[in-house]
């Protein structure tokens, strides 16, 4: 993904004439397909078949606990999900988490990128520190923040004089901690993408603006940000899709209590915990469609240049 942002020197394009394939180019084609085969097969095996299977099973009333009771019900699972207020509550929760994390991460990530870009002091140390959250297991980040705010073990309440304010007994306070952990864990990724974008902003542009009397804020808004738009959009796209799938933090912090269930959590709960395969797969398919929708909106609407992301220029 991260190929991102930089137009790496395009590999020399050799256009093989379609009409006359020499022996060499034919063997090149064969080798290319051969080398790609294992990866493509594994990726297909784990995604295509299960997805089709989910589509198929979502049309049945089917529970693992009662396999003989499997019955074709058409789209009724989808109707059940879409007409349930709980489903929409989960959509809303997912949206809130996504919006909050992506917005805050962009701001903090930009700050981190600026520091990494400009700092002369302990540059290496800062970069290493920023990578730490990226490497930490999400579940462990979730435990760290949960225990920090927890009434039994936490220090947050005593540090900030909050007495015995129970963070995890309210919806918004729970979501706050979930979002905090998500932000801590994933901002490094955003900041690295933005750093790559910053490195592309021509220095002399900023200097010229300074000479012309632009303030730091004007330079940022008129020179820096427009020049790294591609990097920002790529970061937003990837983080949005990532946050939309949030699962680990919710599972560890609240197990979906206090109306903090997200779409991923609902899917997991229906398929694995309740073994209501048909309904769960319907929710899973809806989750998949929502991801496709977000991706299409970004790629078509905001024209995120994915050829940069794919690195196939």
């Amino acid at each position, binding site marked *: *993904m*991260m*190929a991102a*942002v930089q137009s790496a020197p395009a590999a020399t394009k050799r256009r093989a004439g379609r009409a006359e394939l020499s022996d060499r*180019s034919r063997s*090149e*084609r*064969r*080798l290319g397909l051969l*080398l*790609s085969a294992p*990866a*493509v097969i*594994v*990726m297909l*095996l784990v995604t295509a*078949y*299960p*997805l089709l*299977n*989910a589509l198929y*099973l979502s049309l049945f009333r089917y529970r693992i606990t009662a396999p003989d009771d499997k019955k074709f019900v058409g789209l009724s699972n989808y109707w059940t999900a879409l007409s349930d207020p709980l489903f929409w509550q989960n959509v809303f929760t997912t949206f809130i988490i996504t919006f909050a994390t992506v917005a805050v991460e962009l701001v903090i990530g930009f700050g981190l990128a600026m*520091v990494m870009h400009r*700092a*002369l002091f302990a540059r290496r140390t800062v*970069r290493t520190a*920023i*990578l730490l959250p*990226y*490497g930490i*297991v*999400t*579940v462990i980040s979730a*435990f*760290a923040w949960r*225990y920090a705010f927890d009434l*039994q*073990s*936490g*220090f947050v309440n*005593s540090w900030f004089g909050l007495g015995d304010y129970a963070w995890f007994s309210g919806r918004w306070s729970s979501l706050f901690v979930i979002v905090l952990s998500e932000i801590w864990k994933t901002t*490094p990724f955003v900041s*690295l*993408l933005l750093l*790559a974008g910053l*490195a592309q902003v021509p220095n002399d542009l900023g200097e010229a603006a300074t000479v012309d009397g632009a303030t730091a804020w004007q330079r940022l808004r008129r020179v820096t940000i427009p020049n790294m738009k591609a990097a920002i959009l790529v970061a937003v796209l990837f983080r949005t899709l990532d946050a*939309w*799938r949030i*699962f*680990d933090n919710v*599972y*560890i912090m609240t197990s979906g209590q206090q109306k903090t269930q997200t779409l*991923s959590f609902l*899917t997991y709960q229906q398929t694995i915990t309740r073994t209501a395969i048909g309904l769960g*797969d319907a929710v899973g398919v809806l989750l*998949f469609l929502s991801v496709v929708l977000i991706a299409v909106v970004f790629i078509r609407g905001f024209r995120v240049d994915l050829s940069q*992301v*794919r*690195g*196939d220029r």
Partner: protein
Amino acid sequence: MESARSKWLWIVASLLILVWTVFPILWIVMLSFKQPGEIGNQKGFLPHHWTWDNYRTVFKTDLFTSALINSIGISVIATFVGVVFATLVAYAIARLEFPGKKLILSFALAIAMFPVVSLVGPLFNLWRDIGLYDTWLGLIIPYISFALPLAIWTLSAFFREIPWEMEQAAQVDGATAWQAFRKVIVPLAAPGVFTAAILTFFFCWNDFVFGISLTSSDNARPVPAALAFFTGASQFEQPTTAICAAAVVVTVPVVVIVLAFQRRIVAGLTSGAVKG
């Protein structure tokens, strides 16, 4: 050029970043040295009585030790196989002219955006039918396929930077495309491959969704999933401190890798976009 004041500003900003990133990790470490009984009685950041007990507890608990072995084994195998596959594809994409190149890259991108949980239900069924449920292989396969996109991009970006004339020179000298790949390119590509391996390993080490969905016992359950089920030394004790000790144990390798290979990871995540 920079004034003294703004220099200080950058220093303060750097220090703030250090605190923000290290603090939660430090907190987990502190908790892991607290006595289980302190939880709920003594509040505060630092332990009142430092103790190694939690570490002894987790290493005496089968749930954790087998999970640790599972995590290491599964992640290492998945990383190895995934990186081999990714290297082959990335080489083909960077070097060879063949139909379906763009399709493969787009497909990899789509996989990276895929909501993993949508697949967990069907995989759960499928794995139970074909006997992969609760086995190492049952986790290795999904890990490979979801780590592949990142590895493929990283490697394609690295491979574009390699001086390919050397490969051509080898071919002029009579080597086949395959020999040129193995003897000339592989050694040159090793740093990129290594970076892809780090990123893939982090991905596998981090997984939770597959870990809790596709396992049911010590057989294959990796650490993040095991932590969610951990009850501590006894049912009557808070598992908090023991969970933290376990968390510290699985965080150590991550910290070591980050400290040792910081530059490579940054380069990998931005795929050569950041030189420095």
